[in-house]
């Protein structure tokens, strides 16, 4: 999923509503210039929203600086293009206080409205994508890593997750602990290996069997390493400028080359920025924030995990012809999994997947419970020899669907989806409580529905109702309501009616009053036919005082259809 999609649903109207400034006052007096060939800076300066959208969709770095040392957001603020500024902010442009770029944008803002926009985004930085967010919670869920959070909040760095939110529920035990300057950092091998060749090599050799690694070098600073590891988990780097030199050194050792390059550039930049700021006036700690999208695609978290996943899946599939689960997985030595660091294998429909506990547990509550609390159940009793991987067996789903899901878990990405598979993936996503996946599948599925037949739509309607995929359900209901007569003609629609609970006769559920324009439908899904009736009434746009009668007519119609369907059913059964 691209970062644009992940944050597009997130708007800020509520924060700006209290601004009672007439928009007309701030609108440009001359029409906006179009810069069809401009780069992101030109587009921002000109306020050319279309060009900007195109550029952002192609994945340019919103926080890049031009040769005048300015970011795109700076130009948008300076020129007062609020739509361009908002678009940049929604795509992760940094405007936090005490960062060089953030402060600069604040000072440069043309008017109050822009500044208010910046303030609103500063208080609420763009949310992380689900993968990054859940891994970050896992990292911060480790007891000792809370110290980082505290230190961060002392240093006035935005912490979007408050400490109370993280009960023990996000806890997944770390498998390695570093001690730097006497302070512990808890981490998970697979994440570090995925992000840094240095850690990968170390975990394969020297640190293979160690649970604790103590760094005695005085030069290695705790805040810098902690920030880096936090970055490994969350793709968001927040560090005070004073620690950046340490971080650069660490990056060099860890062979995080692209990050190191950025830090180096930033260090040179900060050196000169020093002259521009009034350091004496502002004692608060300067900091630097980096979003993952500033890195080349292959160095971001999803890509790194994707590589890890490829390695794990590339293993020869175990031939599970043997009846006993134990015999089939018991011989898979830990040594086999060294190169991918897999620490669990999941057997699905005769195929075995090598996976990483920390990622399964971070993404899915089901797996977290399964991996950490199953000891009391039957599964906990597999007395595997010490060097064997723990094995899980999942029934009632196909290996293909599971593979898709695993891929989503690791990368947040969903490659082209076959509508045939969608149903199964809905099932997997609900079953493993992976709700973002359902939304992702729905987004991928919607274009396919445009060409679907009424019969297919009925099918999707039932499915989406069952799995609670609101987007699809709404879409189908709208289609059915608008083309009600066409659907009535299809046998499948009538058959579907048979499987659904009848509409409630309770008229109080019905909105007889006209709904306010643009008012949201209640997100709680109720009776499918009730909702269909509402949609139908809306689509028919009947007179208001006729609504009750029309509803009755609709119900009568439905009853007739059901009768017809029953008749058809008994006929077909008779044929059989």
């Amino acid at each position, binding site marked *: 999923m691209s970062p644009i999609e992940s944050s597009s649903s997130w708007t800020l109207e509520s924060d700006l509503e209290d601004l009672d400034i007439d928009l007309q006052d701030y609108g440009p007096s001359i029409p906006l210039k179009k810069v069809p060939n401009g780069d992101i800076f030109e587009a921002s300066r000109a306020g050319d929203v279309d060009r900007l959208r195109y550029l952002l969709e192609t994945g340019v770095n919103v926080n890049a600086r031009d040769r005048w040392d300015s970011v795109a957001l700076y130009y948008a603020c300076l020129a007062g293009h609020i739509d361009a500024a908002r678009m940049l902010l929604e795509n992760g442009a940094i405007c936090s206080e005490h960062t060089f770029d953030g402060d600069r944008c604040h000072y440069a803002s043309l008017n109050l409205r822009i500044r208010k926009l910046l303030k609103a985004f500063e208080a609420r930085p763009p949310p992380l994508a689900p993968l990054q967010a859940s891994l970050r919670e896992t990292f911060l869920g480790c007891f000792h890593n809370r110290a980082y959070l505290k230190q961060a909040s002392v240093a006035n760095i935005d912490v979007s997750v408050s400490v109370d939110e993280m009960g023990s529920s996000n806890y997944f035990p770390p498998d390695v602990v570093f001690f730097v300057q006497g302070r512990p950092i808890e981490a998970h091998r697979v994440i570090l290996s995925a992000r840094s060749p240095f850690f990968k090599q170390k975990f394969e050799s020297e640190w293979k069997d160690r649970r604790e690694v103590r760094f005695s070098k005085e030069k290695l600073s705790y805040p810098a390493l902690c920030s880096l590891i936090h970055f490994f988990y969350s793709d968001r780097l927040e560090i005070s400028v004073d620690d950046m030199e340490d971080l650069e050194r660490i990056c060099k050792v860890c062979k995080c080359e692209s990050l190191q390059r950025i830090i180096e550039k930033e260090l040179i930049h900060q050196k000169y920025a020093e002259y521009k700021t009034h350091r004496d006036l502002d004692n608060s700690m300067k900091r630097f924030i980096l979003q993952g999208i500033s890195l080349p695609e292959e160095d971001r978290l999803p890509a790194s995990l994707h590589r890890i996943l490829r390695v794990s899946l590339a293993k020869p599939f175990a031939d599970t012809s043997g009846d006993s689960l134990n015999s089939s997985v018991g011989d898979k030595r830990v040594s086999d999994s060294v190169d991918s660091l897999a620490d669990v294998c999941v057997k699905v429909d005769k195929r075995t997947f090598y996976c990483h506990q920390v990622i399964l547990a971070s993404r899915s*509550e*089901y797996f977290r*419970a*399964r991996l950490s*609390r*199953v000891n*009391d*159940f*039957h*599964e*906990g*009793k597999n007395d595997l020899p010490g060097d064997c991987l723990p094995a*899980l*067996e*999942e*029934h*009632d789903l196909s290996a293909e669907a599971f593979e898709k899901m695993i891929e989503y878990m690791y990368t947040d990405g969903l490659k082209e989806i076959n*509508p*045939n598979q969608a*149903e*199964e993936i809905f*099932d997997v996503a*609900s*079953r493993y*409580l992976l709700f973002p996946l359902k939304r992702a599948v729905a987004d991928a599925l919607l274009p396919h529905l445009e*060409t*679907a*037949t009424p*019969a*297919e739509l*009925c*099918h999707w309607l*039932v499915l989406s109702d*069952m*799995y*609670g995929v609101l987007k699809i359900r709404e879409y189908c209901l709208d289609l059915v309501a608008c083309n009600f007569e066409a659907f009535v003609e299809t046998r*499948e629609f009538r*058959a*579907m009616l048979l*499987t659904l*609970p009848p509409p409630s006769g309770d008229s109080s559920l019905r909105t007889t009053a006209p709904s306010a324009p643009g008012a949201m439908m209640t997100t*709680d*899904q109720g009776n499918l036919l009730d909702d269909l009736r509402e949609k139908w009434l809306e689509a028919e746009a009947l007179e208001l005082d006729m609504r009750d009668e029309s509803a009755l007519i609709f119900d009568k119609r439905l009853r007739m259809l059901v009768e017809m369907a029953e008749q058809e059913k008994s006929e077909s059964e008779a044929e059989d």
Partner: protein
Amino acid sequence: MSNQKKRNFQIEAFKHRVVVDPKYADKTWQILERAIHQIYNQDASGLSFEELYRNAYNMVLHKFGEKLYTGFIATMTAHLKEKSKLIEAAQGGSFLEELNKKWNEHNKALEMIRDILMYMDRTYIESTKKPHVHPMGLSLWRDNVVHFPKIHARLLNTLLDLVQKERTGEVIDRGLMRNVIKMFMDLGESVYQDDFEKPFLEASSEFYKVESQEFIESCDCGDYLKKAEKRLTEEIDRVAHYLDAKSEDKITSVVEKEMIANHMQRLVHMENSGLVNMLLNDKYDDLGRMYSLFRRVTNGLVTVRDVMTLHLREMGKQLVTDPEKSKDPVEFVQRLLDERDKYDKIISTAFGNDKTFQNALNSSFEYFINLNARSPEFISLFVDDKLRKGLKGIAEVDVEVVLDKVMMLFRYLQEKDVFEKYYKQHLAKRLLSGKTVSDDAERSLIVKLKTECGYQFTSKLEGMFTDMKTSEDTMRGFYGSHPELSEGPTLIVQVLTTGSWPTQPAVPCNLPAEVSVLCEKFRSFYLGTHTGRRLSWQTNMGTADIKAVFGKGQKHELNVSTFQMCVLMLFNNADRLSYKEIEQATEIPASDLKRCLQSLACVKGKNVIKKEPMSKDIGEEDSFFVNDKFTSKFYKVKIGTVVAQKETEPEKQETRQRVEEDRKPQIEAAIVRIMKSRKILDHNNIIAEVTKQLQPRFLANPTEIKKRIESLIERDFLERDNTDRKLYRYLA
């Protein structure tokens, strides 16, 4: 769309055909119900988590969430009902253990069930807004076990009994206790508060009410406080061990109220062991305990402080007004200092240097020191004593300590100008007679006075020091320009600036010829270097060293005053002189002459002259001759003048009058200063402001201020307002 695809989309093609089976829900639920039973019977090892979860998931998916939810509640309720019967059946001591055991089992089972029903927890319960599985399990436990009528009261009584037992010294199982209390806390704050904390506090209150009554009848104050402190630490310890940390404040406040607040007055005023007794006997431990305990209750410290202040004032009053004790000024001041040290130590060791207590101490001292009008004089005398001899052989640091203490007393004085007056006199005497022990000490005291009262206060004192310094230089210059004078008598002149020194009427006297020649020479030398000045000789303040040879050739050096020198020199030319002759020759005023002769003739062992008739007093008709038989063990003999160290009554009156006289211009200056800025002010406000402005020096008397205002009106500085007679106007 291909045909094949179409086939996939058949409604009948659902993967889960279960909907078709009407008994599906019942069957699945039966599986799950059996699983829950097994989990409760700790027999879950045969169950597959994956399978159970899948079943629960499918039930919810096919809209049987309601059935699952109600089924889960019903099953759990049934189990808990059974458990509560088992718990109830437990006998005596095993009751709590049984409860705890069942509670742990329930918790574990609940966790497992929650994991199995996780999908329901996340979707069905979320959308129907029912309580989640875990809180539901807890509230089921609460309703079916804790609030089960036969358990509820028994549980509470058992717990309170255990606490009672521990209070009376028995050892109880704190671990078990902690677990059970933890159960209450897990069930929610309100459960803990209503079902345990409230009755616990009530029982504690009752217990301590009885106990404190018992103690107060049988113990003295110190012991009582010890016991109260012990109880308090016990309760805090109890909270730390097995109660909720939030209960600490509540239970301590119960103990404080019952043990301390309710008996506060009685404790403080306890006969023979109360606060006054502790203060008198320096019982630092007891006092410290009292402070830390009373601090916890409202008005506790106020009570202690009030009693202490009252005691201090009473004691101070006795000390200050006792005529016996004010006989010796040095002793008097020393006593004050000792008292102050004692209370300082009490406050610093027992009362944690509490500011309010220090303030109370200061105000008490201020109160009673000013009860005795002679305090300023006594303090000055004390300083005089210390600076004359007392500080010999004491390290510099200690000198500072003594001076600091004196300054502290000085701060309490309201009539600082009276002190200044005396201090000036005493300083002048010390300087002129060369009696100061340490110049540094003198100067450091002046610096202290300066920081306390400002430049004005000490400028004259400092002038005195400069005079001494310049006189030394002048004398060196004088002898440098008159080298022939190294033979014969040496004259040392101290030139004193008028005004800086305490003035005494210059008493002229005829100096002996040898001396007056020298004086003349000095006068012409001095006036030669400093034109426009006037010198007058203060013969009453000088001293002289004279060498005398007595009858049998005994040689002595006599240290005498100038007057005495004049008298003695007369005997160089005459063997016997009458009083009249002496008076004529020297022209010393009668009173001084009498005193001077008295010291020469009447002091035993130092009577260098004899008089006829031999009597104590000097009469007009007496005659004098040299005492040839004078002997002394020492070569140098100091013949002191008979002077009263302490002022006599008339002298006191005189000083008083001079002080009053000095105050007048100060009051007037203050009035003018105030009126200049205010222009118009009414009478009461003037009085208030003047008093405030003069506070650092003395307490101005309102009637005196009124007189000064009238005098200023007479001199056209002020006028009364024409309409409002109480209003004054400043006339520029």
